């Protein structure tokens, strides 16, 4: 069978095959920037996370989480390497997703008809944050343990259906049985993430403007660009893997939870710090929960909060978007290195102020 015949055979039997093939082979408009490869790099990291996660999961024991990780690191042949793949994969996946989201904000890549794709990227962020937090808890360290303890206590306060759902997830007071449940949800969310990113790719493709002129083929033009971008990612990965495998993780979570020392402040992995900072912007357990939901909802609603009609930002809103990036970065930093005072609260509140007030106001004024 010739290649085309084979493809025809598959295409007429496997739904979605042509879609994937077109995504790879279709002509594209020339001159896409390097940063347009971010989603593909993120997909590569998700594949790595899934693969390493599948290898690790059978060795994991939720009832002796800390000891299980020690066994993986010390006694399972190659275990330390696969565990590092998983940890560094998570770090880089978040780095790529944050970069990609910020880039969409800057180039207004969320405006119609791309708003559906944008909403999928936001969903991916929510899912990865949940999965990342569970991974942090599954380590069996002190930090994860107290974070879980707080989450379960908060869940017990929830009334009605949200409370019932939270109880279904956690199953009651935190302990080894809770980790067994979280392991299931961690894996489930990972599969959701894979599904969401596929959908996001498809949605972004649909939203791309119709090609003017002949365009350029994927092979070899874009293949060369993607290959180069992937090798840069691999280089960064190798540096982290070889020399700073625990970068951004802190020392707290390396202490086993069983020692029952309650830390004064939980130190989160770097990629959870902005979210933790945002949650802290509103007081009380209910405040934390509402803050998280509000933050996701605001990102989700951005295509409608932005009232301008042009293809680009006005100058003021562009500056504000950069400011938001700095704000989130600083928020992560002050959460990682707690300093007290009002600055953390202010940085958190700025995020909400930016989307709720500044975005509609400034874009409306600049559109006029």
């Amino acid at each position: 069978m010739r290649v085309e015949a084979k493809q025809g055979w598959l295409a007429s039997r496997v739904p979605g095959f042509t879609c994937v093939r077109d995504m790879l082979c279709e002509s594209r408009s020339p001159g896409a920037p390097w940063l347009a490869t971010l989603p593909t790099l993120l997909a590569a990291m998700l594949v790595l996370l899934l693969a390493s996660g599948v290898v690790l999961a059978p060795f994991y024991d939720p009832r002796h989480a800390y000891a299980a990780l020690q066994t993986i690191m010390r006694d399972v042949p190659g275990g330390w390497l696969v565990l590092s793949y998983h940890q560094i994969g998570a770090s880089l996946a978040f780095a790529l997703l944050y970069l990609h989201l910020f880039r969409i904000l800057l180039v207004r890549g969320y405006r119609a008809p791309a708003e559906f794709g944008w909403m999928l990227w936001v969903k991916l962020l929510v899912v990865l944050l949940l999965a990342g937090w569970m991974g942090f808890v599954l380590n069996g360290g002190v930090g994860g343990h107290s974070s879980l303890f707080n989450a379960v206590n908060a869940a017990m306060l929830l009334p009605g259906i949200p409370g019932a759902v939270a109880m279904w997830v956690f199953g009651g007071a935190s302990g080894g049985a809770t980790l067994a449940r979280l392991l299931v949800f961690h894996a489930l969310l990972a599969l959701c993430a894979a599904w969401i990113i596929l959908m996001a790719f498809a949605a972004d493709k649909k939203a791309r403007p119709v090609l003017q002129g002949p365009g350029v083929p994927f092979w070899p033009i874009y293949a060369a660009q993607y290959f180069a971008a992937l090798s840069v990612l691999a280089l960064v990965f190798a540096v982290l893997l070889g020399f700073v495998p625990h970068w951004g993780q802190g020392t707290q979570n390396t202490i086993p939870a069983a020692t029952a020392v309650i830390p004064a402040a939980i130190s989160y992995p770097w990629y959870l710090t902005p979210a933790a900072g945002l949650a802290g912007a509103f007081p009380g357990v209910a405040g934390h929960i509402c803050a998280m939901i509000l933050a996701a909802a605001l990102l989700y609603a951005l295509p409608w909060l932005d009232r301008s009609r042009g293809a680009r930002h006005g100058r003021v809103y562009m500056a504000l978007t950069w400011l938001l990036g700095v704000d989130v970065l600083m928020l992560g930093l002050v959460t990682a290195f707690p300093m007290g005072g009002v600055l953390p609260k202010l940085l958190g509140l700025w995020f909400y102020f930016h989307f709720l007030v500044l975005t509609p106001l400034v874009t409306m004024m600049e559109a006029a």
Partner: protein
Amino acid sequence: MMRRFFASLLAGGLLAGVGAHAQDTLAPLRFQSDGVFGSIDLAAAQRGFAVYQGVCASCHGMKALHYRDLEALGLTPEQVAGIAAGVKLADGHAATPNSRFKQPPLVSRGGAVPPDLSSIVAQRSGGTHYIYDFLTGFGPAPAGVTLLTGHSYNGAFPGGQVAMPAVLHDNAVAYADGTKATTAQEAADVAEFLTWSADPNLSTRHAVGVRAVIFFAFLVIVAVLTKRRIWRERG
């Protein structure tokens, strides 16, 4: 050509390593495991195990280790079997190479329980150097400091008062390789041993890391040049 280049690179690295080894590593303090190219100093780690076994093991456990793991420090299986045979476990039997390190009876001193030392270097910021500073940081309390009962003064410990007594002193152990067992030497050796135990793959990780970084750095250069060329010719 390429192989020649790598061979000379490697030889240079080895020479630098040997040169560093011959220096006095206690003043100024320097561990072979320090830095991105560091590797575990196996001789020091073996001596460090002797210090752990002779001095620390009566209070501190190392749950994550088996006696067989010591083979990674260059001990022969016979030596390891000998070490294990010399340990009497709580059930009265002698340990075997597959036994985990013996757990000391849990006693709290001055309200503090001696922590497990398996991963202590990863658990304290400052790592190896902190452990050394801690072990050599005992001394008389400065004027005006009243010690809590069962506590000793230690300048490196946060708060200055620690429930562990000063246990290292000159000749606290006799080294099999003839190294002079000063307090500082013992502290440095046990710190290197604890560095190994917290990250048994440190040497491999660094060696793999260097190779991977060199490989991917070349790949990045080649890939970026290829991309530019293709885009110039066809884009």
